């Protein structure tokens, strides 16, 4: 069983790090890199949303943290002269810190109330970005430099993106690496003591509090990790598009993050990754349908919900209820 899992993991890693770049350079479809990079980054954000689902909260506020992380990275790079590699963890940590402050009061809410307040939070983030002086209002921050080189002890670990022939490939590898790391962390969390505690929160918060689980601490911790992922995704997005506006991440993006989790399946670690891939890639492929794109996309989503209301991965769920 364990060997099979490792074999699957190895095949997956081989596919995304070797197979896809080879296939793309063979077919010359360089535009696919952008799509796949976006999928990888969005699935990092979706992983965060999934973790909040795991403690039984519906999070529609990931767009707020993606925007926040993006702005932190952009402001640090353009105004404080930080390198991109330094801003990446800083953006995540900043988001996590803010999410602790916001999370302490709002995580007391449950169910639909929490869902609605997080949706409102996305709107607050957008309006704050519009109102603050440091974010340059609606004009946004543009011409952000590409990531520079990352030296460790005089050794150039990652070369300067601007000097590369194909920054697209570099961004793809960066995003995919981050994605793999994120899901490894997520998998580790779920299969640890922390994961068991989170599951107890999901099932019944009063009950788990009554047997001595520190629920308030746990849910803030899960929310902070979730926001960390959101900020990380936002920061890389900014580096790719080299610009950020208050509307870069709006309510629609927050809702999309949630949908990715649902489509993949809430009971499976790989769910948000698969969901992001299916929805984002499907949306991209449907662009041939022109004005019927949204119609077909949404019909497919509704149909999926009618056939597999527990997510695509529930197809493999033979015994029912087995993780």
């Amino acid at each position, binding site marked *: 069983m364990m060997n099979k899992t490792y074999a699957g993991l190895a095949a997956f890693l081989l596919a995304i790090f070797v197979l896809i770049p080879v296939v793309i350079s063979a077919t010359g479809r360089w535009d696919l890199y952008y799509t796949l990079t976006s999928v990888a980054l969005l699935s990092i954000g979706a992983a965060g949303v999934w973790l909040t689902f795991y403690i039984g909260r*519906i999070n529609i506020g990931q767009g707020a943290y993606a925007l926040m992380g993006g702005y932190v990275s952009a402001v640090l790079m353009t105004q404080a002269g930080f390198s991109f590699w330094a801003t990446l963890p800083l953006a995540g940590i900043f988001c996590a810190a803010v999410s602790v402050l916001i999370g302490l009061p709002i995580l007391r809410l449950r*169910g*639909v109330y929490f869902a609605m307040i997080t949706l409102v939070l996305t*709107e607050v983030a957008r*309006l704050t970005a519009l109102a603050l002086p440091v974010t340059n209002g609606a004009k946004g921050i543009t011409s952000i430099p590409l990531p520079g080189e990352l030296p460790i002890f005089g050794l150039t670990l990652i070369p300067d993106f601007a000097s590369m022939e194909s920054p697209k490939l570099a961004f793809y590898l960066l995003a995919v690496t981050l994605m793999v790391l994120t899901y490894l962390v997520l998998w580790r969390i779920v299969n640890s003591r922390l994961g068991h505690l989170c599951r107890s929160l999901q099932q019944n918060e009063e009950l788990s509090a009554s047997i001595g689980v520190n629920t308030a601490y746990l849910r803030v911790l899960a929310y902070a990790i979730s926001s960390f992922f959101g900020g990380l995704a936002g920061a890389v997005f900014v580096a790719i598009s080299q610009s950020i506006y208050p509307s870069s991440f709006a309510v629609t993006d927050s809702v999309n993050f949630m949908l990715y989790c649902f489509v993949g399946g*809430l009971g499976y670690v790989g769910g948000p990754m698969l969901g992001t891939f299916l929805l984002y890639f499907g949306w991209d492929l449907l662009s041939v349908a022109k004005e019927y794109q949204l119609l077909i996309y949404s019909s497919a989503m509704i149909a999926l919900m009618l056939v597999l*209301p*527990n997510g695509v991965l529930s197809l493999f769920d033979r015994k029912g209820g087995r993780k």
Partner: protein
Amino acid sequence: MEQILANGLYLGAQYALIALGLTLIFSLMNVLNFAHGQMYVFGGFVTYTVVAQWGLPFILGLVASAIILAVMGALIEVFLFRPVIRKSKRDESTMLLAAGIAFFLDAVILLLFGEKQRGVPKILNGVFNWDMRIIMPYDRILILVLAIAMIAGFIALMQYTKAGRAMRALAQDRMAAQLMGVDVDRYSMIGFALGAMLAGLVGGLLVTITGINLGMGGPTSVKAFMMIMIGGAGVISGAIAGGFILGMMESIGLTVLAAYGDITYLVIFASLMVFLAFRPQGLMGKPWG
């Protein structure tokens, strides 16, 4: 000051109608209807088509909006929400469905009515002027009166008819209502239809004043969520209170805070978060919905 209050009342009456539909659907089915804003836009476009394109009287446009949206709501409930709620392991799955329906309605509106801003000609001319203290066009007053009449009608319906009693029973306890012989499926459908109909009616009312466009759906949903959070989800009096409070805050904020730029909504959102930190269930809601 009188002007601000009058504007707030006018905004609040419309908001309350939107929030009523949303909260009704939520209390009956435990479904957060993401598509509510899109239903509202759809209703507006139906009225626009009937009034501006076919040249029929405004009241017929409103009736058409109400009927079409009610049928749409009933169909959505029977063919989409009901099977998903039955099959799904967790109730949150309906959120994906609701968001899918929101996208779907957006697409349908785009294909049927196009992306342009649409409005209908003024239904009443003239401006009401009380000593320069309250200045309000007559058509706005008519809309205000209609909206308040509809709210009153809705409350009467919920309070005094058999269907209304059945729906209130459903909202309190689904299982108990079923044991008492309430046809749960039938009244869920009626409730969803009624909620959608209210959204369509507001759309029809507002198309005469502000016009309507495709992009209004999402922001309207967000505003409606805020209203039912203020008042408490699933409580009818709460939805009305939330609608009027938001209307007033917007009206006051736009006047008082105009000097500081466009921060009214930021202030409203921030105060809402503080408010919810102290009273998570809203003004009149039951704890934990």
